[in-house]
């Protein structure tokens, strides 16, 4: 009996830890494609990029943890194939490995850009990416960041905090428009502008000219932005290519049932950014690229595999996302948002604020919260209990 985990990012590591916590005492083997320290990703666009911490302060799994949890860790192994008949995984070095239970946690990578890669052009996904970007910024914090999603906006905030005046470019009309709403997006647009970030919204990128830290980014409206560093924040795509001939159902991720089990095969689970897990509530399979989701799924399958879930039903978790920019801490609870919304406070005026959305039946659907711990706790409890949104709104107005 061995449980084999493919991937050493948050989902894979937390699954190993959770299995041990649930009392699983047989072999756990973890394969990772990267070598070196096993690090966590959220800080790479923030504290690590600003030079406030180094990788030693950002470990997901230390050497001592590997020992104390008795994990068989094998780094520098990139999985290239899966055979669910013989229950084997093949690696890029030609090695083949047999599993009893397989946990696929290969995550996601930066979306392939349209532009040819060049010195001074950076993605930000891995520790290596973050080191490269930091080196590139040593000569100055000027940068053009393409894509104002969460990571792009965090990088812009980090550079502005260090005194830089980065450009932040996006075809949409507000930063983080896919993740926020227009109200909170406006809060963040105004804050970025006030901090010296040069927003270029409603703007596409036509071409990137130049090379070797000497670029001109040409926007669709004709503007030319000169810069030494380009950061690409274009989103992520799941690492599923190695599963192409496995027979697993692949559709924007590994499609699983409600228990994170790959459809149609036995003893194969998928969790984290790579997994598209069936949600009984919405009836759809959902792929989520967030840290807490990966941790929740890791804990869930550990209980499922060890039988300690006591028949607790399929995976269900209220989405929780956060982003730290400047001294604003944003936290988003839930993902059900209708037309109606309630705005309580504002971070610029009251130092804190929240926007609460009811679901279609008036229960809690979603909160977007800035700098307000009590609102966060109350929203997460309301989400778990299915509290009417108006009760939450009244309570928040009371304590604003």
């Amino acid at each position, binding site marked *: 009996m061995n449980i084999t985990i493919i991937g050493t990012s948050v989902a894979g590591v937390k699954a190993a830890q959770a299995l041990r*916590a649930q009392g699983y005492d047989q072999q756990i083997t973890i394969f990772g494609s990267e070598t070196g320290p096993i690090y*966590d990703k959220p800080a790479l666009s923030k504290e690590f990029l600003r030079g406030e911490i180094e990788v030693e302060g950002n470990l997901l799994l230390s050497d001592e943890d590997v020992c104390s949890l008795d994990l068989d860790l094998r780094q520098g192994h990139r999985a290239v194939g899966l055979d669910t008949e013989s229950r084997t995984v093949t690696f890029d070095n030609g090695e083949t490995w047999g599993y009893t239970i397989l946990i696929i946690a290969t995550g996601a990578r930066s979306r392939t850009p349209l532009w040819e890669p060049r010195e001074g052009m950076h993605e930000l996904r891995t520790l290596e990416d973050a080191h490269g970007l930091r080196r590139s910024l040593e000569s100055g914090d000027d940068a053009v960041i393409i894509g104002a999603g969460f990571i792009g906006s965090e990088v812009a905030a980090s550079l502005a905090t260090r005194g830089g005046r980065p450009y932040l470019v996006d075809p949409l009309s507000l930063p983080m428009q896919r993740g926020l709403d227009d109200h909170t997006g406006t809060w963040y647009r105004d804050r970025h502008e006030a901090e010296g970030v040069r927003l270029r919204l409603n703007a596409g990128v036509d071409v990137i000219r130049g090379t070797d830290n000497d670029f001109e980014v040409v926007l669709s409206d004709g503007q030319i932005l000169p810069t030494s560093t380009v950061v690409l924040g274009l989103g992520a795509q799941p690492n599923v290519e190695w599963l192409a001939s496995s027979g697993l159902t692949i559709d924007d991720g590994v499609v699983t049932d409600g228990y994170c089990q790959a459809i149609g095969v036995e003893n194969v689970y998928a969790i984290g950014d790579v997994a598209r897990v069936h949600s009984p509530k919405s009836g759809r399979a959902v792929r989520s690229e967030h840290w*807490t989701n990966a941790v929740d799924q890791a*804990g869930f399958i550990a209980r499922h595999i060890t039988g300690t879930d006591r028949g607790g039903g399929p995976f269900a978790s209220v989405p929780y996302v956060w982003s730290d920019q400047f001294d604003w801490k944003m936290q988003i609870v839930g993902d059900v948002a209708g037309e109606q919304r309630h705005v309580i406070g504002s971070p610029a005026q009251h130092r804190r604020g929240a926007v609460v959305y009811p679901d279609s039946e008036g229960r809690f659907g979603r909160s977007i919260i800035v700098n307000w*711990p009590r609102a966060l706790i109350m929203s997460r409890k309301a989400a*778990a209990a299915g509290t009417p949104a108006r009760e939450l709104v009244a309570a928040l107005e009371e304590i604003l």
Partner: protein
Amino acid sequence: MSDEEQVSYKIKADVPSCEGYANCVVAAPEYFDLDDDSGLVVVLQDDVSPDQKAHVENAIRSCPVAALRLDTIRE
């Protein structure tokens, strides 16, 4: 471990490391809360019995900044 040995567990919180994500509160609300003003973790009870160990470890593991740990106490 002998049968006579009593093992219990104690929660240790590194409060300055806490950034108020509240994952611990959601996972184990009977052990953790956030302070209203500071937004930082408050441990409501730090003694953990063996049958609650996995439950509390689940909460500790969910901390994005690793501000929590569970110490083993042997008496």
